[in-house]
């Protein structure tokens, strides 16, 4: 895409593209809100765990399941641990799992989608049949079964979420590739003697990329939700605190009937905010990158 002559030109062009993009994106309230939310949580995950102490030691029976107070802003759990500190520490694992799984999904989805769309015919038929099968298999049971068989660990949960989440992406990218493949500029590229690889790298990829980008954001939202759900259902790594693991323990230890709302609500709110943040950005990108929608 950026095969323009000198490094200086390349830089000028990059600046021009970014400023055009930012100029449109900036106008989008939703997009800015999403960005602010995500920046906040990214900061929490990066810096937060160094600022709080979250130990698994019992601080004494009187400190168990305490409602919020000045000492414990969000109260304590059944082991007397500070819920606020748990939320901060958990953010790191939750985001890590979500992002890592997203990368797996997107790489698989993009490769399968582009290959199926570009090569067409038999390759397409086989890959898409396979994708469709993945699309109809109920997603949570599949993840649960795989997670149960693999055993609870951070790597496994990332693998399970990543490996089950690519099908929708592959479908979307395939259809976009199909439509780009038929554009005259691809035919023109062939007419000047370009090979398949050149066409895929210089013509298909740059034009599919905005879609991959927008889709990554939405897949990330789903991945975070998946992590929470799997961990809640007991498939998470119990030694690595995440929002989902926290909710699992809270539920199993009867926080609901005890009325320990301070233990149940904060991690949930965090999940909702992060997912909302991703969704907002996804919607905004969709609007920015898809001018047809912009007028609404």
């Amino acid at each position, binding site marked *: 895409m950026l095969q323009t002559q000198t490094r200086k030109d390349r830089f000028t062009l990059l600046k021009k593209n970014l400023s055009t993009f930012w100029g449109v994106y900036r106008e989008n309230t939703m997009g800015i809100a999403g960005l602010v939310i995500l920046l906040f949580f990214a900061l929490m995950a990066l810096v937060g765990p160094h600022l709080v102490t979250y130990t698994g030691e019992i601080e004494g029976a009187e400190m168990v399941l305490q409602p919020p107070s000045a000492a414990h802003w969000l109260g304590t759990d059944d082991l007397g641990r500070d819920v606020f500190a748990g939320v901060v520490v958990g953010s790191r694992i939750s985001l890590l799992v979500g992002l890592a799984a997203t990368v797996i999904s997107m790489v698989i989805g993009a490769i399968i989608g582009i290959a199926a769309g570009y090569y067409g015919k038999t390759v397409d038929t086989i890959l898409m049949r396979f994708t469709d099968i993945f699309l109809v298999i109920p997603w*949570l049971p599949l993840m649960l079964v795989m997670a149960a068989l693999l055993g609870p660990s951070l790597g496994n949960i990332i693998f399970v979420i990543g490996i089950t989440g690519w099908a929708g992406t592959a479908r979307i990218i395939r259809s976009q590739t199909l439509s780009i493949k038929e554009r005259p500029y691809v035919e023109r590229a062939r007419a000047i003697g370009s090979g398949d690889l050149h066409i895929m790298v210089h013509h298909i990829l740059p034009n599919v990329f905005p879609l991959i980008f927008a889709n990554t954001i939405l897949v990330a939202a789903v991945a975070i939700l998946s992590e929470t759900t799997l961990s809640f259902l007991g498939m998470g790594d119990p030694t690595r605190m995440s929002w989902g693991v926290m909710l699992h323990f809270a*539920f199993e230890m009867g926080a609901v009937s005890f009325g320990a709302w301070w233990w*149940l609500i904060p991690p949930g709110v965090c999940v909702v905010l992060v997912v909302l943040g991703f969704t907002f950005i996804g919607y905004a990108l969709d609007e920015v990158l898809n001018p047809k929608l912009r007028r609404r």
Partner: protein
Amino acid sequence: MKMRGYVLRKLGQTVLTIFVVLVFNFFLFRIMPGNPVRILIRNPKISAEALQRITEQFGLNQSKFVQFGYYLRDLFTGDLGHSFVYRKPVLDVIMEKLPPTLLLTGTATILSIIIGVILGVIFAWKRGSKLDVAGLSLSLVLYSMPSFWVGILMVMLFAVYWPIFPIGGMSVPGTYYATIWSQLGSLLRHMLLPTVTFALILIGEYVLIMRNSLLEVMSEDYMLTARAKGVSNRNLLRRHALPNAMLPMVTLIAMNLGFIVGGAIQVETVFSWPGLGRLMYTALMGRDYPLLQGIFLFVTVCVVGANFCADLLYRYLDPRVKS
């Protein structure tokens, strides 16, 4: 003729999908390292005859192909194995738990589709208004919530904080109901909270899709034609926009069947609803592999079958789909 070809093709795809799921399932539970059968055999406390029985049942002393044949034979005779926890055939356990699940998911799905479509239409029609913005934001928030967490909030609010509804289950254990009506009333009271939770989870997405789909349709040229023809607003919506806008909804509802299964697992777990979803959670917690595998297969085949029906429905609704 064309229709028959279409049905045949879709049927072929469905059968293929189910076959792949079977192979996948076999692979998952028999071949993968650390698979349950191997764990079973490794159990040092296992008796010699039990080991013999298992070896025979799964054809462990024979080739993988023969094992797969055994597996298929068992499936087609309805033998999904024996549950460790319930000490009963897996299929029996599933059938026992199926009706409560169907009751809950069916009610919630129908409810959410109706409400979702209506709200989506209203928001699209009044796009840009305060109502639209508020509805859209709420839908997005609902869509972003983990399903189980919505359930937990509902229980905390309406069963613990204000104890209006029972905390879970389908009935009060050990109660004798004098009349069918009192039994039904109790059922309704138990059902309300999980149903509403379930519907809330689903509505968000339906509203968003319906609204977008309708907006898209309303910007089409034929809608301009219809307006130019002097069609009244009511008919514009009912006879011109909705038939087109409902098409993506049908696809979505079909695609969502898998999501509904996922929702059922979470909602039933939170509300201790005695259905398939909670059964799966129990199987997971108790590492009851035969049961887990049975539920997974059963649910997948149901969803694949339902998708097949949705495809046929779509074909019926959209005259443009050619075979």
